[in-house]
Structures are given as structure tokens and as C-alpha cells.
């Protein structure tokens, strides 16, 4: 990240200026598209130079497509693909007479693609305004202007005592501010081996310890609510159904490292998340659980809820911080790490929403109890998993680590509906390996999944049924990968495009060339986006080579 731009933003932040991205989003919300006047105003108000604002305005999906009075966004994520391939966007496009990214001449309706709305349990899904519709007939309703809000299934905990799906009573924060103290809390979190739930699996305790020691005028906690992985709606549920648990987790993080302020960056594709969090924060403030002098101590902590603007890579922590500050959501080389230099150049802890939601229990009940949540494995704590529409009982479930994937698919989610058979499952998101049906007895845990080229990732379990052509899957994943590449590093920026081109037509795929690409991506990419796309492709090459059309 440009140190100078961050410094300019910091100076303007000190006088409460909005970020350039906030101004641009408001402009689009207001009049459906961006003009140069909007960009100039964003520059003036935010302190970001005009050219930089221009760059921001060309990066985020939400700022690019012109909006009509009715802005129809069709989800083209993997769960919606698994349910209906590309037929939904084709049908709606035909019905409205628009290509994606177009607005009708009279300005009444516009069409765009979006990934992902978090309604993977009822794919395909379409968003019109802030209403998300899903399931059979969704395309026709969108064309006819009769979009209605889709229902969302209840989430379920399989644990003897639910943890993540239970409302918080802020007992964790109370205990931390009382008997545990800062050092005690840090020690507990480290001992509990809380691993990041967003995909990287990095120990939260280590991150916090580093940030606690770092020097800076101010420190920040940032909750990564940019759950961009198609097929995953876990953080959505947490932010919308149990927001106080997250806020408590953030306050605990702040207490541990010495931060007085936190940001939640939630995706703009989840229009209900920000309002939910703001209501929860307001309520918490009223009860003295956020703000100055929490629970009558001298600990101050408050939060700001920010919305993203449509970019998958913003889920990467340095890109996330760029987005929080209103910059282009590109990845930055590390060092420096966010714990050393993050928001406004200050030490920052970035944790996934689910990770932070784990902390209150650790603070309340301690390491041993946290460990006991997953009795059959060394991995600690519980995990939220979610299933796509192909399953009989898709929803978010709280499970212990160590169950087999088969148990999760068949016992918990009821297997595929309408008698369909699992061909393969992609676990953890689009960068996760693909597990063929033959390997369903693999245990759902970090090491066992890694051993078969897969990952826990975010925890989504996305099934492809027997009717799915795996070459289509390869093309779908590569298109997603190429579209979402932030464009900074060369292997990903160019390599994903070339990889997609390999599969884009019906021509045979040159395997040797593809392998070279995969190696360059794995070893060369700046972040897990380019670095991770090879994983599912390698799964396909290993388990479904005959379907890929190799030369």
C-alpha cells in the first residue's frame, strides 16, 4: 500500500472525513452511476488525490455497472452454478433484453452479475435493490418485476451446548475485564490455539501477541466480514443472527492488544449485514458494553461498520485494509504485516468474523472447555459449516472438527435431494480442493483435508451432482478467478486469464502448458487468490482428467 496515500488518508481521518470509496458508493446509490464531478468531490472530501480516486472508481463492481431504477443482480457464484449453470443470467438477460453491465435506454432497469449473495442454500439467487430472491421461478420473477425476499433456513448446532449460534451475554468480556486481565486473556487465546476460520488457519493468539507488542499511537481491530467465497454464508449468519457475539469478540481483541477502535468490513452483497451490526452496536453502547468506559472500567472500545463495494480479493487482509481506507482493493507485499502497519499505518489485527466470534467462549469458559468442543481431534473449538442448495437440508451447522465429510454430507445435511448422487464436493471456497465422492470418508479437519489436496477454508461444503461436467467446473472457477484477480501480481493477473482461455473454448487443453501455469501461480502469486486457484484444478486433473478435454 502506498505509504503516502495512507498518510494522506490518516490526516483526513483525523478530521472525520469519509473515505473516497464511501463518497463514490453514495454517488452511485444516489444517481446510478459515477461522473467526474463525483470523483472530484470524493477527492476533495477524502484527501485522496484525484488520480487515486479515479483508480478506485474503476476497481469495484458496485461502482462499475450503471443502475436503473430496478437494478437486477444475478448471482453467478459456484452454488448457483451448481444448481443451474449459466442459465439464470442467460434467461434474465434475454427477458430484459440486456447484457450484463447494461442499463435500459429508459433507465428503468439494469442488469449485472454478482458473486455471491449468500443464498447458496436456495440457489439460484437474484438481488433486486436490497431484496434477495432465490429458488425456482426466481428468473421469471426478476423479469416480471415481482422479486420477493427468499426465506433463509434456521441454523443448527450439533454440539451438546451450542456456542456460535447462541446469543452472547457478554460474559467473556466481563470476565476478561475482571479476573482475566489483558495478559490472562492473551495467554488464554494463545493456549486455546484458536485458528483463523477464514481460510488461512493462522493462529489468532500469535497475531494478537505480535500486535500487543507493536508500537503505535493507535491500534485497530478489523473484522473481515468480506465472505466472498461462493457457497459460503457462514459469516452472513453470524453478522445477521448473532452480531453481538462478533462485537464482543472484537472488544476482547481490542482489550488484548490495546486497540480502542474496530472496523467491521461486511460485504455489500449482503445488504442486511451492515444494518444488523449497526443495530447491535447501538444497543451494546446503550448498555455500556461498547464506547467509553465499558462496564465501568477504563477500557474504551467502539466500532465502525463499513460496507465493501464488490471485490473478492478484498477478503485478503491487506486488500481488506486498503478497502477500509477507501483505496483500491489490491494486495500488498508483506512485510510489513498489518500487525505492524495496518489502518492509517498503525498496528492492526485482522481476524475473520467467525474467528472473532470464537473468542467470547474462550474468555468465558477457558482453554480446556474450548478444546473439548472437538473431542475427537487436536484441533480446538467448533466450526460452522454450510451446505449448498443441492443438499436436502442446506443451512449453517455448528459441528465439531473430526467428523468425516460423508457424515456431514449425509447425516447432517441429508445427502443430495431428489435422490441425486454426489459427484464431488468443493470444500472451503473456490480456492479449495475438490473431493471426489470416493474420498468422502476424509475427516473434516485441517491436516486430513490438506493431505488430499483440500482445505477447511471457510467451511462451505458445496456439492456437484452427477450431472455436472467437470470441465464446466474448471471453466467456471477460472472465470471467477480471472474476474476477481486484483491485477497486481503478474502470475495471477495474466496467468489466470490464460488458464481461463485454455478452458474457454472447446479446444483441447495443453496439459504441459497448464502445469507450467499452475506452478507459476502456486509458487509466484502474491496472495492466496492466484496461489490457491491451482488447488481445485489439480484435484480435477487428478480425479477427473478424462472430463477436462486434455490434449
Amino acid at each position, binding site marked *: 500500500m502506498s*505509504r*503516502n496515500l495512507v*498518510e*494522506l488518508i490518516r490526516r483526513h481521518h483525523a478530521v472525520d472525513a469519509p473515505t473516497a470509496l464511501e463518497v463514490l458508493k453514495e454517488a452511485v446509490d444516489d444517481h446510478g452511476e459515477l461522473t467526474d464531478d463525483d470523483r472530484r468531490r470524493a477527492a476533495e472530501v477524502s484527501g485522496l488525490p484525484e488520480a487515486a480516486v479515479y483508480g478506485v472508481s474503476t476497481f469495484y463492481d458496485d461502482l462499475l455497472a450503471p443502475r436503473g431504477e430496478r437494478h437486477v443482480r444475478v448471482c453467478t457464484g459456484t452454488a448457483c452454478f451448481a444448481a443451474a449453470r449459466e442459465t439464470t443470467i442467460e434467461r434474465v438477460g434475454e427477458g430484459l433484453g440486456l447484457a450484463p453491465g447494461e442499463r435500459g435506454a429508459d433507465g428503468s432497469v439494469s442488469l449485472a452479475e454478482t458473486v455471491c449473495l449468500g443464498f447458496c442454500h436456495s440457489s439460484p439467487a437474484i438481488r433486486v435493490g436490497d431484496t434477495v430472491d432465490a429458488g425456482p421461478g426466481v428468473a421469471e420473477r426478476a423479469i416480471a418485476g415481482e422479486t420477493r425476499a427468499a426465506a433463509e433456513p434456521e441454523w443448527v448446532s450439533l454440539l451438546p451446548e451450542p456456542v456460535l449460534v447462541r446469543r452472547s451475554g457478554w460474559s467473556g468480556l466481563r470476565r476478561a475485564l475482571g479476573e482475566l486481565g489483558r495478559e490472562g486473556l492473551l495467554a488464554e487465546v494463545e493456549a486455546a490455539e484458536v485458528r483463523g476460520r477464514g481460510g488461512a488457519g493462522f493462529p489468532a493468539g500469535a497475531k494478537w501477541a505480535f500486535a500487543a507488542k507493536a508500537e503505535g499511537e493507535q491500534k485497530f481491530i478489523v473484522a473481515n466480514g468480506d465472505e466472498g467465497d461462493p457457497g459460503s454464508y457462514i459469516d452472513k449468519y453470524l453478522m445477521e443472527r448473532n452480531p453481538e457475539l462478533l462485537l464482543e469478540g472484537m472488544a476482547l481483541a481490542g482489550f488484548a492488544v490495546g486497540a480502542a477502535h474496530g472496523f467491521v468490513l461486511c460485504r455489500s452483497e449482503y445488504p442486511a449485514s451492515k444494518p444488523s451490526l449497526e443495530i447491535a452496536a447501538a444497543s451494546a453502547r446503550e448498555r455500556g458494553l461498547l464506547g467509553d468506559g465499558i462496564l465501568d472500567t477504563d477500557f474504551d472500545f467502539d466500532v465502525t461498520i463499513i460496507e465493501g463495494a464488490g471485490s473478492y480479493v478484498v477478503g485478503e487482509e491487506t486488500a481488506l485494509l486498503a478497502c477500509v481506507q477507501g483505496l483500491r482493493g489490491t494486495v500488498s507485499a508483506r512485510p510489513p504485516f498489518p500487525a505492524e502497519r495496518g489502518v492509517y499505518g498503525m498496528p492492526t489485527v485482522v481476524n475473520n468474523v467467525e474467528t472473532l466470534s470464537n473468542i467470547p467462549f474462550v474468555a468465558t469458559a477457558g482453554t480446556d472447555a474450548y478444546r473439548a468442543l472437538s473431542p475427537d481431534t487436536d484441533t480446538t473449538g467448533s466450526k460452522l459449516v454450510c451446505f449448498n442448495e443441492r443438499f436436502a437440508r442446506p443451512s449453517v451447522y455448528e459441528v465439531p472438527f473430526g467428523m468425516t465429510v460423508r457424515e456431514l454430507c449425509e447425516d447432517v445435511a441429508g445427502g443430495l435431494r431428489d435422490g441425486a448422487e454426489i459427484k464431488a464436493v468443493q470444500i472451503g471456497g473456490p480456492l479449495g480442493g475438490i473431493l471426489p465422492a470416493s474420498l468422502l470418508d476424509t475427516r473434516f479437519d485441517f491436516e486430513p483435508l490438506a493431505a488430499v489436496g483440500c482445505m477447511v477454508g471457510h467451511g462451505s461444503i458445496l456439492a456437484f451432482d452427477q450431472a455436472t461436467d467437470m470441465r464446466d467446473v474448471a471453466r467456471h472457477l477460472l472465470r471467477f478467478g480471472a474476474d476477481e484477480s486484483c491485477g497486481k501480481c503478474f502470475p495471477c493477473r495474466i496467468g489466470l486469464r490464460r488458464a481461463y482461455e485454455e478452458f474457454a473454448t472447446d479446444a483441447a487443453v495443453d496439459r504441459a502448458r497448464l502445469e507450467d501455469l499452475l506452478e507459476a501461480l502456486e509458487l509466484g502469486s502474491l496472495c492466496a487468490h492466484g496461489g490457491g486457484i491451482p488447488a481445485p484444478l489439480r484435484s480435477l486433473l487428478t480425479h477427473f482428467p478424462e472430463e477436462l478435454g486434455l490434449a
Partner: protein
Amino acid sequence: MATAIRTEAGPAREHADRTASTTCGYCGVGCRLETTAVDGRIVSIRPALDGPANEGHTCLKGRFAHGFTRSPDRLRTPLIRTDGELRPASWEEALEVIVAELGRIKGEHGSDAIAGLASSRATNEDCYAMARMIRAAVGTNNIDNCSRVCHSPTSFAMRKAFGLSGATGSFTDIDHAEVAVLMGVNPTQGHPVVGARIKQAALRGCKLVTIDPRRIELADYGAIHLAPRPGTNAAVVLGLCHVVRREGLVDADFIAARTEGYEALEELLEGYDPAAVEEISGVPAGRLEAAARLYGEAASASLLWGLGVTEHKYGSEVVQLLCDLALMTGKVGKPGSALLPLRGQNNVQGSSDMGALPDTYPAYRSVEDPETADLFEAAWGAPLSRHKGLTIPQMFDAAVAGELKAMYIFGEDVAQTDPDTAHVAAALENLEFLVCQEIFENETTKFADVVLPASAFLEKEGTFINAERRFQVVEPAIDPPGEARTDFEIIGEVSRRLGHDFGWETPWDALDEVARLTPHYAGVSRERLGRHGLQWPVRPDGSDSPTLYDAVFDRPGGRGHFAALPYKAPGDAADQEFPLVLVTGRILQHYNAGTMTRRTGNAELVDRDLLEVHPLDAERLWISDGDKVSVRSRVGRIEVEAKVTDRIEPGHVFTTFHFPETRTNLLIGQSADVNTSCPEYKVVAVDVRPIGEQAAFTPVVPDLD
């Protein structure tokens, strides 16, 4: 490839048949440049990665504005005025006329009836040669250079306060300063590479205090901006000193051990509390205090200033007060605590260091000092005048009075850039004989009897000295066009024909002579200068001086000298008839008279002078952006296009002087620095109105705070 030391930026050269490493001839930063030429034309210029001042960067002038060297307007032959018109002539003809006329005038009126003007754009060797010619061949000390109209007050003041005439540190001190005070200087326009360095330092955390009637660009990156009324700088600096003392931020040990004269200053400071300073200058007391504290509390703090300090009636006094501020706090002679006057021209430092001045030899040794005069007499083998010569303003006065009969000017367009154009024109008109040695015809050559075609900085060899006292090598990228010759050759030839042969073959011989005769430059030589130059004083063993005064000041007794100088009003002030105050200055794309830059693509980027007017004034005066307006001062009137902007304060206007059509300096009167005669370009009372309006009763501008 990449393991070799890369000295130039950018792609490798292709099709180059001549390359050179040289020093830029535009401003006082002194960027090191790598030039590439093909078939006698410059193809590309790139910054040297290892340039000490520029470190791989440069600005549009050094980088791109070289096209003037092959402009069709270039003087390619000598010109002699016949029947009122300048017509081409041969060198032989031209030189004969010069020798004949100068000889005649010297015979009839004495040597002191002749004066020379050395170009601050030319090399040290050119200037030294010119000074030697005027002194030894003509026999007078009437030699001056254009530092007169820019930093002569700095030279005067710093010699008084510290002993040496130059920055006390280097540009790199900016990187180590916690605080930097910028007074009357706009580096992002006038010294772009230094401006960029300051900006980066500010973004890294260096706190800037900008003091200027205009809100300069760096004010947007700074901590505090003070906008004093033009002409009130002394009060502001005294106010800063007052607060520093009041808050106990003085370095008592330093004052005791290394200075003299503090008591007198202390007494004077009583009268300059922030409220009093606000009264005089308009700077809010609270802001002044905050600025003083910033400076005083910093572990390291530097002071930078420019023509907004010097081009005033009491400019030299303000510089002395700035020196006082540094002496009080001990912020001199240490890394990060430097006093950096940003010298304008590429070699204004050098032309003065070389003694192209009426009162000093190289290194500011007085012409009246018997030992020095004897030294040069012996070295040059000619009797030398022992009394001070005329400064430029005095030359014009003497010309108008009929006492000065001839002038030899090289590389300066006085008719465009000196103040009170009408007076300058009258002076030049009244001369019996005027020689101009130039690269283009200009406003001054309109009065010339002989014009000699000379060389641009890209066509000569020698050295420049930049604003950090750094001697740097100049190497030619191309040859002068047509029959034009290098200034060094021309002056050598003229001097020889006047009876004084320098005996030099190349400019390096001249440099060697300077080093031999000047202890401060003793260790300077072509070989030693290499690619990185040397900052004087340079000792015989070649070691140089990035930081001055770390142990002792260069004055008798070794102590820094405090000057107790009260505020006095400037030479001009707004009144009923002339209710606005004009400040003149420079912008990025052009350099001074624009002689070079107007003949390059820079003219496409900026093609005219503009008058900056504040929106409130514009409204009151019925002026819209882009309107042509008349600007009238006590001595002259011009017409120029208005630009409405809030970068300037109400009550002030600003314009440049880059385009001869504008004739900005018609407006500037005779007010000048009391010690050095540097003109007060920065405070001129004017009346501004749309063209065509009759002068009518205009109320005085109300007091604005």
C-alpha cells in the same frame, strides 16, 4: 547488466553518437544529468541515479526543456548595429568594434566608465574569466551578477552572522529535520527536486511551517501556515524569536559558548510579543506561538528561504534575523538543522563565489583589502583598482546620469528581469556602447551595439556551484550552433585583444587558477570533482564540507553574531490609489525571463503570465477568471490575464515575469534592500481593474485579519 553501477535511469541508449554527464543549467538544485545526442542534436536527457542533489530525479526543465538549443532563433553569427538595425557580421569585425570602442571609452572617460555583467547561468570559469577581464583588461571593479537581484541579501547577512556566504548544510539535511520552516519560498515551483524532497519528508513526518502570503502547495502538507502581509517578514521572525525565548526553548549553553551579541537581541525582542506581531503582520498570535514552539521544541529543525525573504527593502535584515533564530536555539551546524537559502539560478552561488561582484574577489575577499588585491595583481600581472565598483542598480543610475558609458553584458536580460523597466531602458539607451553576449536576441539586445553569439549550458564545459555549495562538473552535450562559440572562448579572446591574455587553454585551467588563489577552494580540481562534486570549503587534500559550523563559525573569534534589527515598513504599501499588493515570482514550467523555456514544449504547457487574484477581490473589482486586466503601480502599467484562485490572500495579487510581452517589471520601482540593493520585487502597491475602465475613486482595502 544490473550488477554494474547504473548511473542513469531509464532504458539504454540507442543510436547515440555523443553522450555526456553534466549538471543542469536551470535552477540552484543542480541535478546531475546524462545527455544523449545524435547528429548534433540532443535526443534525450535523463537524471543521473547517483546525482547527489537529485538522486535519480529531475524536473521538466532539466529533463525536457533542451529544445531551445536548436531553436531557429538561436544566434548563430555576431551582429553589429548599423543604421539602427542589427546585421550579421564576422567575428573579426565584431571583435574589432568591441576593442575599438572600449579602448576609446577607457581612454576618454577612464576605466570606471565601463561595466560588466556576468551571467549567473554561466559556469564558474566563465564568470571568473569575465571578472578577470573587467578587472585586469579594463581596469575597473564594475562587475556584478544577477545574484544582486535575488540572494545578495542572503550573502550579506550570512557572512555577517556566520562568516561564509552559503547554505550551512546540504539538501540531505531536509531528510533529517523534524521540523522545516519555509519562508518566502515555493520549492515545488522554483526548485522542484528539492520541493519533492521536502514533500516526501513532510509525508514521512517532518513538520513544515510555511510562511508566505500565498498558500503554497507545501502548505497543504504542512503543520502550520502563516500568511503575513507582504513586507512584514522581520516582525514575524522577531515574533518567533520572542516566543522561543519566552518559552525557554533557547539553547543557553550554545549561546554562551558559540555566539556574541545576544543581549542586544534580547532587549529588542521585548517589543515583539505575538500580539504586537499580529498587529503588524496579520499573523494570528496563536499560530505564531504554535509555529515557534514547533521549531523550538524539535530536536532538529531547518530554515529554508527564498526570494520572498530577500527581494525586500529589509531582506538582508530578515536573513540576519533568521540566523538569529538558529543561533538562539543552537540549530545550526548539526545534521537536520541547516539554514538553506534556495538559490535561484544554477550558478548564482558560483558566480558570486567566483568574485563576479563589485566589492569582492573569489570567496568574498574585499577588493579593498591590500593583501588580496596584491595577490591577484601578482597572479594576473596587471594593476588592479583598489576601490569598490558599481552594483547593477548603480550601473543603471550611472548610465542615466551619463557617467557610465559602456556595458558588457553576458547571459542576462536586464531589460526584462530587472526592476523598473523604464529606468533600465533609459539607462541602456543612454550608454554609448553596449555589448551583449547571448544565445538569443532579447529585450536587452534591442539596445545593443554588438551582439555576440554564445553557448548554452549544454554546449560548454566547466563547473557550477549549486545551492548546497557543491562544485559540479559541466560537460557539453553538443557544440554551439553555427558560428556561436563558448562564453569562455569569447571572453578569453576579447580579453586577449584588450591586452590581457589569460594564458588558459581550457576552463579547467581557469578552475585550477581559482583553486590556487583561493584557500576555500584549494582542493578543487576536475579529477576530484568526478561525478559527485565537492562542497566548499574544499581542503587541499580534497576533503569537502557538507556541514558548516559544527565547531566554530568563520568569523574573527569564531562566534556566531546576533543582529538586533527592528521591524521597519517596506518600501511600498497599499493605499487609496493603489489598494492591492503585488508579489512577483516564478512557476514550475518556466525559468525567469523564459529565454530558454519559452522555446521548448514548456510553452505548450504554459503559454502566458497570469495574475492570481483572490475571489473576494475579483468580485469586488468585477473581474472574472480569464479577463484581461490592467495592473498599474506608481511607476508603470501592464496588461495581463487574470486567474481567480483562493491560493492567494485577499488584498494581494501574484504574477510571473516569464513572457517578455507582459513586461511585468515595468511595475517594480526603485525600492531595494538597504544593504545590497536587491530590488523589492515582492511588495508593490498596485491598482487592478478590467481593461477599459477609467481610474475612479476606489476605497482602501479594509483591514483583513
